[in-house]
């Protein structure tokens, strides 16, 4: 693991070039270009707000929960969507030159992080307009790290698995949607915690790292109370675990990428 980190660090210029390439290619020859990374979540929020409004479920805090949730989720959703293609789509590169393969999915995760950070500025403007004063700034780097860890860990796993089973790219859409509803993106975590669900299910809620991450972001942006530290620790621990497991699986599978592609 340590050798891997050193190897990736020694190729940080390649990583940088690939990140820039990913950003450039995503918006190449589209009129709005980079603005799409803002337009997309805004439209998504519009759609959810419309339907939840019709259902009469928009009241009080639910709109700000929706906005913060959708922007935070957007990063995960983009990474999962891109992950399956990062190795398979670069078959030529993999077969013809030797470099740490992990750089390919990692550069994708970082390129999407750049998008996310910029979209965070928009959220900040919204939050200030809504009359909230963001606080708990020390938590922001922790949340960002955990957020990247989750995106990276799952992306590494999906990218490597897709080389062996092309079904992965078919399944990711569904998996993303299931995870979306299991995470408190559209709803507040209290909805689950105060429901009549079995206690072990409530305990498992924070095993989903996105639960803790979404709570953390809302604590920072909207001034909501942080969940109990034990719950946050559970989520953050899971985020780290996902990153480690994803990396280990990737390292195990990457040896035969050239053979399989």
């Amino acid at each position: 693991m340590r050798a891997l980190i050193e190897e990736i660090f020694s190729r940080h210029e390649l990583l940088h070039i690939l990140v820039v390439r990913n950003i450039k290619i995503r918006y190449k020859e589209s009129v709005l270009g980079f603005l799409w990374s803002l337009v997309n979540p805004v439209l998504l929020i519009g759609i959810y707000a419309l339907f939840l409004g019709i259902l009469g479920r928009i009241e009080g805090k639910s709109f700000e929960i929706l906005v913060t949730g959708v922007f935070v989720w957007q990063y995960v959703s983009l990474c999962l969507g891109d992950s399956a293609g990062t190795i398979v789509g670069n078959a030529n590169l993999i077969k013809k030159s030797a470099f740490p393969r992990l750089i390919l999915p990692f550069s994708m995760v970082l390129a999407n992080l750049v998008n996310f950070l910029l979209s965070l500025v928009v959220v900040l403007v919204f939050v200030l307009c809504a009359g909230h004063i963001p606080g708990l700034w020390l938590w922001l780097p922790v949340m960002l790290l955990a957020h990247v860890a989750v995106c990276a860990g799952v992306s590494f796993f999906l990218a490597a698995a897709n080389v062996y089973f092309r079904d992965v790219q078919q399944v990711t859409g569904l998996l993303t949607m299931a995870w979306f509803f299991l995470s408190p993106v559209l709803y507040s975590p209290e909805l689950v915690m105060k429901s009549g669900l079995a206690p072990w299910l409530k305990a498992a809620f924070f095993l989903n790292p996105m639960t803790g991450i979404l709570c953390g972001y809302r604590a920072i942006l909207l001034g909501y109370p942080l969940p109990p530290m034990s719950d946050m620790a559970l989520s953050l621990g899971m985020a780290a675990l996902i990153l480690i497991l994803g990396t280990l699986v990737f390292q195990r599978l990457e040896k035969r990428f050239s053979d399989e592609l």
Partner: protein
Amino acid sequence: MSQAVISVEHVSKRFRLQFRGMRTLKSAAMDTLRGVWRRPDRQLWALQDVSFEVKQGECLGLIGGNGAGKSTLLALLAGTMQPTIGRTRVAGKVSSLLELGAGFHPDLTGRENIYLCGSILGLNKRQIAERFDAIVDFAGLADFIDEPVKHYSSGMYIRLGFAVAVEADPDVLLIDEVLAVGDAPFQRKCLHRMDDFRKQGKTMLIISHDLPTIQTISDRILFLDKGRILGDGAPSLIVEQYEKFWRQQNKGDLRSEWGTHAVELTGVEFLDAAGAATAAYAGGATLRARVRYRTRGRIENPVFGFSIGDVNGRLIHGSNTQIAGLRLPAIEGSGELCLRMPDLALGNGIYLFSFSVHSWDHKTNYHRIDNAFPVAIKTDRVFDGCCYLQSAWDAGSDGGVGA
């Protein structure tokens, strides 16, 4: 100076064929279910117990037919694949010309791709910036460098790829059939560049099917077949061995045969000056071929023809008895004809003879056997190309070059 830069120790590489290409969960599940008792492992050993070393500054040529394992070997040395058994070791920075422009992204400009590709080859930004002008210059793409490479012609694409790879300044250069692509000026440029590399004492591994070229470039040649080393030694020796092997093994590759069989060509025998059977001639020697035939019934005025092609099927020379002004009377039963070619002007290599017999008006083809008779030529004459033509130089009559 002479320590091993590349060492390959008892390397074998296995491919599992069933795993290749699109694999789905369903097939994996089915395999697992079936494989509990017996694993239907269709596997291919692309390399088997291969060992050799390459010294600093040496240029090693790799020859062998398709599927011999040459490209797999280079992929192992480039580090893109892992050996199944054994160990490879390469000292220093490797740059591979395995597929030119492989790392290019069509939507990025030439400039962006140079940075991307150079970075993949292990250069940092400063190094790329320093080499940038040289790369663009070598590729001859100054006017197009800020265009997306998807608008490039395939020739421009290849030129840029080659330029980046050679400017990466590697210690070891791996070259897979690069000489086969690109036009003649580009190929000359490549060869020239490879010569520079040699002079700098860099190590090279080259795959090529172009035997005369690889024989000139290499210091040593490795001959692979079906994943095993069949020969390792001096270029002329190994090329000769390879050609002999090729004659015995795949002489039927380009072979084709058709006709009405009213006359049948029953055999062709190549003879040397002393009348003994042979399949190898020295440059300038006289080739004699005895062509036997058998007819069904009586055939008026048949025309016998022959042609010579290279191993790629390209026609070099063809003629027949009609052109030669030999009007044969009617033939019946069995007989033979003798073809004589004095002062063979062909260059080093393998050539394939074709023979035919058809009617005087060319309307009926009795029997034709194409590319079935290989002949090896080994000449001491020094020249470029496949044929030796008489030529001489004169200093100008008005005082000459030096005046």
